[in-house]
């Protein structure tokens, strides 16, 4: 099947800055695809390459099998939800939503009806007469979504759309976006620096770092089997064990990752491995107690379920974890 979006060795350099550096990607149709990475990792530039605001310095991009290089944004069947929403301040909400239909020459009555429908879909019916300045951040976000979706794009690009919202609203919008994507069956490409957002919403995640894609996979794969130290660090705070520590556990690997929640207190049983460490600090985080330990000079973080005893600082304890939870990584 032709992928919705295809990147072949795509680079975008700004002078000496390699914003995007040799990226290969394939996003399937109907997929919720997250581009995850810290700021400056190239994820937004990749999104802009799809939208057509940037042209690749080298490499090849296809949108539904058609070459995208040299195609201006207004000839691409993709729409963007901007980070700052980019609502037109001089137009009413209805005219904002109907903008894409208006420039395509749709009649006034018809486009108003479609825009009203789109507003109802994002739970803002009857808001059409207001100006963007009269809406809250969350409402503006919904208008931006309606304005993009009313054009029935084949791919919807979302550039950190939830970044400016407070936590509660963000969680609500995450669910709504996910539901919307499933009902419409659209391809969503979602840029975020929030790993929990990417993991909870996406079908697949690409982790960006310094202009390169470090790993692509399902949230589960990314979380359980990070390929590099960066991915292990960035996607949840994994413990990274050094080569020496690995050897101590009878493992010949340059490095290995171990999730804090995989670690238990107590002597290892069959199929388990063990570590000895001295607790340094502990903090209570509601459902878990987070304990930092010193294991032969390396810091290991363990998330212990609330209710289980918390080891006292300074008293050496034994830690146990399942053999398969220790994940070997490519580089140190």
């Amino acid at each position, binding site marked *: 099947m032709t992928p919705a979006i295809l990147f072949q060795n795509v680079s975008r350099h700004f002078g000496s800055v390699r914003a995007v550096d040799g990226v290969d990607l394939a996003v399937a149709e109907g997929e919720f695809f997250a581009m995850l990475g810290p700021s400056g990792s190239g994820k937004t530039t990749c999104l802009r390459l799809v*939208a*057509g*605001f940037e042209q690749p310095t080298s490499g090849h991009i296809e949108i539904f099998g058609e070459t995208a290089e040299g195609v*201006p*944004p*207004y000839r691409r069947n*993709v*729409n*963007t939800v*901007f*980070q*700052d929403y*980019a*609502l*037109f*301040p*001089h137009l009413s909400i209805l005219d904002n939503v109907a*903008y*894409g239909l*208006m*420039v*395509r020459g749709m009649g006034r009555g018809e486009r108003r009806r479609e825009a009203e429908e789109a507003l109802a879909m994002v739970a803002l019916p009857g808001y059409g007469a207001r100006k963007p300045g009269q809406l809250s951040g969350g409402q503006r976000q919904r208008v931006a979504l309606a*304005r*993009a979706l009313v*054009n029935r794009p084949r791919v919807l690009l979302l550039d950190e759309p939830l970044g400016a919202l407070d936590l509660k609203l963000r969680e609500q919008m995450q669910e709504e976006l996910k539901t919307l994507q499933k009902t419409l069956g659209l391809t969503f490409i979602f840029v975020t620096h929030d790993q929990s957002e990417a993991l909870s919403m996406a079908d697949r995640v690409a982790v960006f770092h310094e202009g390169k894609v470090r790993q692509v996979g399902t949230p589960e794969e990314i979380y359980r089997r990070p390929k590099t130290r960066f991915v292990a660090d960035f996607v949840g705070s994994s413990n990274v064990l050094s080569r020496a520590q690995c050897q101590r556990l009878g493992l010949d690997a340059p490095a290995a990752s171990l999730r804090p929640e995989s670690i238990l207190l107590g002597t290892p049983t069959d199929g388990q491995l063990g570590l000895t460490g001295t607790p340094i600090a502990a903090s209570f985080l509601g459902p878990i107690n987070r304990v930092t330990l010193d294991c032969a000079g390396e810091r290991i973080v363990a998330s212990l379920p609330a209710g289980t005893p918390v080891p006292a600082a300074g008293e050496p304890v034994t830690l146990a974890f399942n053999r398969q939870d220790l994940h070997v990584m490519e580089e140190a």
Partner: protein
Amino acid sequence: MAMAAHQTHAPTTSDGHSLGRLSDVLWRHPKLFLALLLCLPLLWLGVVYLGSLAIFLVQSLFAIDDFSGLVTYEPTLATYRQLFSDANFDIILRTVLMAASVTLASIVIAFPIAYYAARYAQGVWKAVFYLGVMLPLWSSYLVKIYAWKLILAKEGILTWLFTKLHLLWLLDSWLAIPVIGGNSLSVSYTGTFMVFVYVWLPFMILPIQAALERVSGSLVEASADLGAHPRQTFRHVLLPLALPGIVAGSIFTFSLTLGDYIIPQIIGSSRLFIGQAVYAQQGTAGNLPLAAAFTLVPIVIMSAYLWAARRMGAFDAL
């Protein structure tokens, strides 16, 4: 106690300075502060500007006695009848047409410059832009106009340039056009127009640039993203958002052209503009009421223009 050793850097209730006490008083009485802030500008605007304007307008309700040549201090509309006599109405029409064409030309020339400065120029180029726009304002207005007289004269550099480019026929046929043509550019309306545009252009560029500067780049991208061709983006996004700047700039170019009396006197035909008429009426002719009536014309025109601009929604984006 351990706390005793800790020296606080917190502000004291009174620092003893009288200036400090004054700021405390102003902080407690914000209205007093506002009054102090505004008293000087209000005095200036109210008394010096609006006051003298009012006195001037009252003058226009008097009329000059045709026999004695003295002003009769009795309210009458005779001066206004005189204002709309054929000769004087010609002056008004000529000035308004000139101001309108100067304004239109300024918008057309200023917009691309302002657009470049707002969207593309960065760092050094931004500084070059500001210098380039402001530099002409640093030199004397009169010097510039006399320089233009030399440039536009029959023996001037422009004629020379046209000759060198073998385009003199073009210049000649332009000058052969009635009304806007003439013996040479420096004695034609075309010349007056060119100098007006040159002198007022910065007043059009800067407000448009300021308006465009506030248009976030993502709005232009969003427009393209939603399928708008560049022409449509200009029509539906850039132009409406730049309109307050264009209106502000056109207020400058329009009213400055309406009131100027030096440029048409040095460059152009001998036919009068409003500014020259005011100058002549209050000076040599001694007809202060008519001069006052003439000054009312730009005020009425500008008020009507602003009202129309408001009706068209020029200030909605503010």
